[in-house]
């Protein structure tokens, strides 16, 4: 029976399962021990599993990710936390030049099974250096997989899927999702997870337009769809869930059904994941089914501002999605 729990609790439960199931798994990061992590995600795990396996590290992002790479290629299964996804800028060498490259560069003779968890996104008033959505950076690096779960069930299941994957996975958690609640069926073994990296999910069926979203924009798209329904517009909402690999087939199939496409993400629009989704649709026969131009509802291309109203203006809101959808359908 599913139980109601928060996104953070469902994520913690997945880590607890992995720590229990596989002694090669360890957690490392800044203040993830007694403090419980900046967002409380690892709360209590150090008491259960000890300081050896739930490791507080110095504030050394490059060393934390490099630690994961070195441990992963010698038989461990590291799950490391960047306190904020922005801080991964300090760890780009081990992530981009090392983790992403080693399997290929060394001729397939090594795998790098590691997970880098990182809270991203804005809406918390933390301004430009603690609010970014950097998924496009990572999605652009062959060798990395990029996962952005939107629901408590998915964050649980996708962490387990990331553990089962032999590649380095960047696991981006939106900070505003941590306290959201939903039904979660806890798995008793990682192998029981039904989620697959690279599989999108249709969360709401509709006939008038397709809204492709991920991370925080998934609940916003669902809320917008409710509003649209009361105006007589039936939106199909797809949660992409992972952006590398990207499940473009699910989007194409939906567009063939609805004839309209709206893509939404919080990250800045230029050269973002949305552009890749649109291109992927246009490269297929789904293009022939489009009844209107495609639309993108994305973050403004400015660093995240502090003031509430400024921040709100930069991040796509429910009403922005709703308005853009109406325009698309009524065009």
């Amino acid at each position, binding site marked *: 029976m599913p139980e109601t729990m928060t996104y953070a609790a469902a994520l913690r439960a997945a880590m607890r399962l992995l720590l229990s199931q596989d002694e090669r798994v*360890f957690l490392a990061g800044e203040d993830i021990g007694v403090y419980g992590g900046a967002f409380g995600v690892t709360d209590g795990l150090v008491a259960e599993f000890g300081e*050896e396996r739930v490791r507080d*590290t*110095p504030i*050394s992002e*490059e*060393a934390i*990710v*490099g*630690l*994961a*790479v*070195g*441990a*992963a*290629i*010698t*038989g*461990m299964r*590291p799950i490391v936390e960047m306190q904020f996804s922005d801080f991964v800028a*300090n760890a780009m*060498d*081990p992530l981009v*030049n*090392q983790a*992403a490259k*080693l*399997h*290929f*560069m*060394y*001729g*397939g*003779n*090594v*795998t*790098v*099974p590691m997970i880098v968890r990182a809270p991203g996104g804005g809406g918390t008033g933390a301004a430009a250096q603690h609010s970014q959505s950097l998924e496009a950076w990572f999605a652009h690096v*062959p*060798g990395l*997989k990029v996962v952005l779960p939107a629901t408590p069930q998915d964050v649980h299941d996708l962490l387990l899927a990331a553990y089962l994957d*032999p*590649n380095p996975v960047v696991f981006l958690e939106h900070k505003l999702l941590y306290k959201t609640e939903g039904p979660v069926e806890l798995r008793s073994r990682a192998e029981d997870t039904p989620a697959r990296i690279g599989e999108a999910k249709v969360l709401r069926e509709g006939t008038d337009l397709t809204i492709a979203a991920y991370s925080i924009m998934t609940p916003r798209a669902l809320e917008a769809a409710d509003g649209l329904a009361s105006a007589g517009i039936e939106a199909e909402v797809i949660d992409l869930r992972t952006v590398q690999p990207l499940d473009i087939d699910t989007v194409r199939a939906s567009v063939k059904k609805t004839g309209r496409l709206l893509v939404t993400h919080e990250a800045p629009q230029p050269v973002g994941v949305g552009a890749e989704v649109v291109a992927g649709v246009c490269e297929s026969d789904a293009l022939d089914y489009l009844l209107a131009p495609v639309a993108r509802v994305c973050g403004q291309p400015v660093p995240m501002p502090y003031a509430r109203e400024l921040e709100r203006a930069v991040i796509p809101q429910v009403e922005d999605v709703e308005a853009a959808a109406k325009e698309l359908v009524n065009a």
Partner: protein
Amino acid sequence: MPKRDPTTPDGARRSLLVMWTIRRFEEALEELFARGVLHGTMHLSIGQEAVAEGVAAALDEGDFITSTHRGHGHAIAHGADLERMFAELLMKDTGYCRGRGGSMHIADVAAGNLGANGIVAGSMTIATGAAFSQMMQGTGKVVACFFGDGAANEGAFHESLNLAGIWSLPVVFVCENNQYGMSMAVDKATAGGSIVRRADAYGIPGVRVDGNDVVDVFRNTSEAVARARRGEGPILIEAVTYRYRGHSKSDRNLYRTVDEIEQWRKSRDPLDRYEARVIDEGWLTSDQLEECRIEARDAVRRAVEAAFRAPDADPADLVGAAYA
């Protein structure tokens, strides 16, 4: 490769063979480069063979190394197969990296060589992670981390020494100070004037060794490895050496004099010095010494000939190859 003691007759034969093999291997590469059969560039360690061998000789089978962009010597001393190395540089499917890595990325993870690395200091956090892994798994294995003097000014150097220091990780940091980070002289690049003294800041031992004396490198590394294996933590070794060749193939040697290079070559060459020592100590006869040279030359020759015959790397294999 099994541990060997370069101060014994059997060890001397093996160490000398490794050092000559490194030199002949790299001289062969120079020739191949001049003939235009290689692609890209390469970084030669000619003149630095004593560091690679002195460290490798001190490691037990199963211990790990991480290497640098100037890593041919490290790989050979750790037991790499010459034919697969040549095959990699000759863009063959039988190369260590199937033609995907080239000179800067020779790795043999199964044999404990966690890889050469094109990023200065890039392997330092990885070595730290591999050492952490040994501690967590209780393997008793040690990681030797090669890096250059230039790497000592990267953040990864400091983060790695700090992390290895607080957690007492079984890693031996080996700085090959070959006097120049590309063109920048080490004394111009190093605040405080000393790399080895930076160990003090992290509460770990630091020792400066003569990097052109394989025996000095071996003895100090052996002590460091034993200490790390006992769980007493990391150590920083600064091996003072010299690179005869340019940084890479684009180097016109504008930052140093021919005299300087000649002085090192004439008075401090690691092979000349070790050969003289081997004879003085009576570890080998001059005939045995000559046999080592010939054996190295022939092994290199055979390897390069075999590598030429191997099939080329195949672009068809690239599909999906970025992921396991």
